[in-house]
């Protein structure tokens, strides 16, 4: 594979990874925290109604994990496509 094709493939994979992670981001925050909050509130997690927990706790934990997963996977991909610093 020549240099230019590698770059294009690297960018495609990067965009795909972003799309997956941003889908999780949207499902957890807008899905669990807002759209389906009333349904989830009928389930309880200890003293927390589950929808309320996602809105005020769970979504934030998910955000932190998402970024570190991205950092790790992109680091691996940078080396694979030889574009790392």
């Amino acid at each position, binding site marked *: 594979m020549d240099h230019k094709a590698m770059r294009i493939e690297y960018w495609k994979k990067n965009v795909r990874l972003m799309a997956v992670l941003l889908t999780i981001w949207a499902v957890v925050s807008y899905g669990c925290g807002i759209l389906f909050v009333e349904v989830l509130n009928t389930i309880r997690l200890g003293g927390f109604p589950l929808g309320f927990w996602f*809105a005020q706790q769970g979504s934030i934990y998910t955000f932190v994990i*998402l970024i570190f997963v991205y950092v790790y996977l992109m680091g691996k991909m940078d080396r694979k496509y030889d574009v790392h610093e």
Partner: protein
Amino acid sequence: MSIKMWTYIMVGLTFSIYLTIAWLSRVKDTKGFYVAGGGVPPIANGLATAADWMSAASFISMAGLISFMGYSGAIYLMGWTGGYVLLALLLAPYLRKFGKFTVPDFVGDRYYSNTARVVALCCAIFASLTYVAGQMRGVGIVFSRFLEVDVNTGVVIGMIIVFFYAGLGGMKGITWTQVAQYCVLILAFLIPAVAISLKITGNPIPQLGFGGMITEGSDAGQWLLTTLDALNKDLGFAEYTQAFGPGSKSMLDVACITLALMVGTAGLPHVIVRFYTVPTVKAARVSAGYALLFIAILYTTAPAVSAFARYNMINSLNNVAYAEAPTWFTNWEKTALIAWMDKNNDGIIQYRAGTSMIGKPALAAGQTGPVGQPVYTNQLAPGANELYVDNDIMVLANPEIANLPAWVIALVAAGGLAAALSTASGLLLVIASSISHDLYYRIINRKASEQRRLTIGRIMIGVAVIVAGYFGINPPGFVAQVVALAFGLAASSFFPVLILGIFTTRTNREGAIAGMICGIGFTMLYIVQTKFMGMGNWFLGISPEGIGVVGMLINFLVTVAVSSFTPPPPAEIQELVESVRTPRGAGAAVDH
């Protein structure tokens, strides 16, 4: 020792730490002044970003707001953290690879146009000024309660301190001061939170505690949140954990405000500029992760503090005779941030849904009521509620409510100041660099010497401090509300042109300029109409805090549409966009 003595000690100690750091990291070149020399380690940058980010609104107002809003408080929690995911994935690495000093720099170069640069510059100044006014107000509030000076004097003290360390050290001074400020503010937030969590639920981790059971008192053995739901309902409020109930926000509004805050976070110039200070693209990604981690420590604790504060407040005030009211209540009455008007003259405090008086409490000097309470000149509002509570006191008064020792109360004061000052300094630097770098150097005088540019940068910080101080003394609204507006403006101006500038090669100068003007124009018009001209939320019932989302969509649409009818960008710009997409070859941030 008294609370006041402890406050002098804590505030004096922390301020001397900041000033020492500022003196040690004073700078002599523009690179140090604008991007801290470009070699800040990711973890330090994460700490600094977190302090930069967490403002007086996050520290002082947010928990109070959530306390009153219950579930709907999630807009701030998710909104102000979720934006970091967008920042880390969509912006930080590419802007770092691009390697310039400021956001208008990126916009000006990517869109090969000084007009675009000027539009971006105006947006940056506007968003930052709106935001910094809230910070100065926060400084004033903290000073007024804890050092017993006038709010305005407090604002002036804050102005002098910020001017000293931002002017001296520029970005370098700010970065290392913010690392110290993060440590102060997080300790100040966590210590009372842990103590209160232990006291109410027996669990030292607030994040778990507020989903736990109450251990003592008449509600012992009940889930805290279930008890709160019941208390809220009894007093006529929406249930604490219930979404979209009567009196709370609609689903569309919650979604819009959350998104506006997320996108605004990702578009705020003082946050973006932090990613220019790290050495590599990888470091930019990692430091976004660290920043959110450090922010999440406070942001997951805040809702717990809110629930505890709500429970404590209702329990210790509602249906309690004024003569037996706790001392924290009488202490805070002096600031007029909490007030009681005995509507039914029974000498007992009744807390119910609804407002107690028209406008903010205005003390009638020297007069006391039948049970020794202060008298206010305000008109009574209809309804049974007798208690006025300002959101801002929930965090500040919390340690007193829980009877924590004096040094903890003093530490909270120092933490509030750290939060407000760290954000104010970051914003002031953005305003100063927008004018001295983007306007003066890039547009007016390309031949200016290093020395001259530094001097102008410092003068601009001085000017910005004075303007911010003016707004701090004459605030346009209460702290968190003003801040929320800055996000709408950032969301509707920068975010679309930054994203399109990185992810498409076709977006051109004409599109970007038209998009930014339409986006921010619509958002500002709506905010002015609804906030200052008394119009209703006429667009689908969306609050002014959430309207930035609509402004952003308008910006996206206009940018794409105008770009497609006008010539594509020159070949070298398209190559530039391609090169921004790969990490290798990111040199130091440069200013040409």
